[in-house]
């Protein structure tokens, strides 16, 4: 293995909190997330000669991590009937209609999104990557990413119970936002 240049190492170091936030949001499980990040860093180091200097290390590592997770996810999909259900069940209870949108509601809802929608939403709406970067990371077209995000947003609103009829939902989510 070729040892990376100090600036490469620093770029990897800087990417760590981002990779971790993405992995935790994606899997809903801190241990699994840290394993994914570890694997992504090790693979990145082992393949560092494939990294194009001057491009985004963060995006490159996101691609590696995302691909790993998909491989593991596909494997699990063959093993269990409903990976989304398993994951959702592991995460939390159903959202309560408690008059505010709390963090647990959001995490539960996020876990119920189909994987393709979840990752696209996280990369664009949370991580702040462009549609183009996200499309490259997910190996698909920009239009597909836009469509997945659109579906994800609607589904998320349904799942946290703010998309219902009329003002109650609006009121609830605005209150939640104001509590920040």
């Amino acid at each position, binding site marked *: 293995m070729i*040892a*990376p240049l*100090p600036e490469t*190492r620093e770029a*990897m*170091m800087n990417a*760590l*909190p*981002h990779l*971790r*936030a993405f992995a*935790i*949001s994606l899997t809903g499980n801190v241990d699994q997330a*840290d394993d994914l*990040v*570890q694997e992504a*860093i*090790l693979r990145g*180091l082992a393949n560092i000669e494939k990294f194009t200097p001057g491009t985004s290390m963060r995006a490159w590592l996101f691609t590696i991590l995302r691909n790993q997770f998909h491989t593991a996810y596909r494997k699990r999909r063959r093993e269990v009937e409903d990976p989304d259900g398993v994951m959702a069940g592991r995460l939390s209870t159903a959202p309560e209609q408690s008059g505010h*949108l709390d*963090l647990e509601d*959001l*995490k539960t809802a*996020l876990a119920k999104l*189909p*994987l*393709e*929608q979840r990752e696209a*939403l*996280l990369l664009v*709406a*949370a*991580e702040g990557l462009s549609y183009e970067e996200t499309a490259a990371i997910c190996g698909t077209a920009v239009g597909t990413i836009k469509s*997945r995000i659109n*579906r994800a*947003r*609607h*589904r*998320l*609103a*349904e799942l*946290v119970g*703010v*998309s*219902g*009829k*009329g003002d109650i*939902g*609006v009121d609830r*989510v*605005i209150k*939640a*936002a104001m509590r*920040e």
Partner: protein
Amino acid sequence: MRSRLPPVVVGGDPFSGMVYAGGHRIKLPGRAMDHNNDRTAPKPGTRENRAAITRPIQDALGERLRSMYDDLRAEPVPDRLLDLLKQVDEQRPSDR
């Protein structure tokens, strides 16, 4: 003027419950068409809520999502991950 009916073309916005049939926009009774086999396609029975999702809701949800994510990003990175990169640094020969 066409002498026979054109073929039915199904398409359009998957959220709206509308389909284009022979160029005319028609409202389907009951559940929406099964659009494709994309795993991320919307599930039936949820579309009636879609119209109610307004900009303020989207903005508030987006803000909440970012806030959750920012909190995660602010967490200290575990040593076992930092060590992966520290070890590499030590392995690198010091001569240049």
